[in-house]
């Protein structure tokens, strides 16, 4: 009796420790964003929303937030379109060295963001392209394309191949098959790829830092704020970033996975 109670206690405390390990940093971050004082460190002096007020009235932070959203949505859209086209081509046609091509498309996943950023930086310098949000966007397409390709490619089965064949048989041209049959049919996985890409782009720092100059994304702006020391305002903006990521994941869960489960 006692031993079973003890083991139950042990397993519950293990669970608590596990989630504590994962979520404690975030919880502390969010908690001290409400800190009524100059420093986001214990003790907690009481709750205030003033730091959030400062975040939303800080024009540099707000423009960085807009930049982040533009880069995230733009790069995710491009990555999904390219990923879908690549997946369609490789899944539906006999192409030379298709295994190698698949490998090459997925390979960037294994390369660290730092190396990708350095490579792109060198390339842009060599080509004489000046750094801007566009170059950040291109960098995010590079990192998200393999993900989009892998997710969409995995969902293309033989059953859908027959459905596409039926569409062609009924007179659809190839682009009509892609836009009216394949893409709508694969929409759950395309949306999953899109929202994951948006989330990754939204959080990404290294590429955004190395490939941007005057206009920066939110993580880069936060980093430059951090250089002037800890401040509950950085906690507040960090909480906003976290909240947006959670919101994106919830959308993904609700729209995409629920839709897939229904079928």
């Amino acid at each position, binding site marked *: 009796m006692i031993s079973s109670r003890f083991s139950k206690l042990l397993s519950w405390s293990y669970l608590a420790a596990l989630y504590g390990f994962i979520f404690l940093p975030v919880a502390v971050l969010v908690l001290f964003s409400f800190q009524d004082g100059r420093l986001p460190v214990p003790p907690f002096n009481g709750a205030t929303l003033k730091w959030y007020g400062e975040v939303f009235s800080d024009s540099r932070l707000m423009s960085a937030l807009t930049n982040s959203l533009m880069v995230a949505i733009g790069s995710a859209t491009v990555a999904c379109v390219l990923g879908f086209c690549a997946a369609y081509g490789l899944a539906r046609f006999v192409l030379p060295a298709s295994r190698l091509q698949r490998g090459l498309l997925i390979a960037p996943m294994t390369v660290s963001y730092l190396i990708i950023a350095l490579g792109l930086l060198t390339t842009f310098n060599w080509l004489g392209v000046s750094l801007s949000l566009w170059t950040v966007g291109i960098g995010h397409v590079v990192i998200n394309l393999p993900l989009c390709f892998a997710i969409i490619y995995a969902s293309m089965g033989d*059953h859908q191949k*027959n*459905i596409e*064949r*039926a*569409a*062609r*048989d*009924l*007179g*659809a*041209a190839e682009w*009509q098959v892609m836009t*009216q*049959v394949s893409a*709508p*049919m694969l*929409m759950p996985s395309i949306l999953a790829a899109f929202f994951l890409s948006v989330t990754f782009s939204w959080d990404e720092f290294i590429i955004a830092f190395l490939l941007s100059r005057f206009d920066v994304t939110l993580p880069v702006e936060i980093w430059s704020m951090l250089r002037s020391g800890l401040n509950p305002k950085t906690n507040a903006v960090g909480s906003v970033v976290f909240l947006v990521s959670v919101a994106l994941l919830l959308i993904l869960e609700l729209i995409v996975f629920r839709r897939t489960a229904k*079928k």
Partner: protein
Amino acid sequence: MTAPVSIRNATKIFGDFTALDDISLEIAAGEYIVLLGPSGCGKTTLLSLLGGFLSPSSGTIEINGKDMGDVAPAKRPTTTMFQDYALFPHMSLRDNVAFGLKMRKVGKAERHAKAEELLDMVGLKTSANKKPHELSGGQRQRVALARALAVEPDVLLLDEPLGALDLKLRRQMQDELKAIQKRVGTTFVHVTHDQEEAMAIADRIVVMNAGRIEDVGSPENIYMQPKTIFTASFMGEVNFIPGTFESATDSTISVKTSLGTVELPEFECRGFAPGASVTLAIRPEHFRASTGTGPRITLGKAKVEDGSFFGTHHRAHLSPLDYPNMTITAHMPQSAIIEPGAWVELTLDPTSVVVLHGHPPRPTPESAAP
């Protein structure tokens, strides 16, 4: 709309496998043709050649007198009804059926009206707003038929359309398919491996085996006057009695078998030479009691080994007195009393016996049933 189809010397080779070997077939406009054969016989390959999903290694295919050599599936006057229906899962039934018309740039109102008309024909008018996943297998099948017919093809290709349905629904859909075909008049080419389905539905059956056409004819002809041992065994249960052709007179032929010499009326001389190996093919239902009118011949007495009741008849295994190693399957009348060990007379109408070239590859008639 409807059109004749003409297949001339079509051959299809995949690597070192010959899927179709010099096939020639003329299909009349408005005909219901069933391509029948075991899996791997080339029937689906032939259908894919007609639909344009494959192109022949050699030979030509003409639809309505036009060579289809370089014509893509989308441009052919054919549509295909796929085995797994291949409905568009994200579209309503109305949009599914109207898809082909949309691709032909038919206006929205017009194509929706046409789609609803076709859904009405297959009995699904009230479900036009549903999605395919809300339907049963038989209903999906009807939608697939409506979708394929919406663009008014000259030729409808059906790839094992009833394969995924249970038996009762399959029989019901056979009747519907045939009725709809008669109504719209389109040439139907239907692939199946089910010989009962083929007989129930076809105007003409094309029996295929190993990439070749074994036999072509009406269901009655194919069943009762098969031209080859393969066709005879594929079309249903049959007893093969191997023998040797002895002689022919003006009115009769005689064949020597292990059950004695059998005299048969000469109905069609197929160039048998004396001494040639032949096989007598006899359907189980052709064994009849010795009473009755009409010509009768007998293969001697046989002992009943066992019997089982099938509702419409008793199916019995018999071993002939003259050659006990042979097993004969016979259908006896419902009212017959089948007792193992009893002796019966193997009486039959000589006109129902078919004489075929060669000997069956396997000696027992049992193994010949598909």
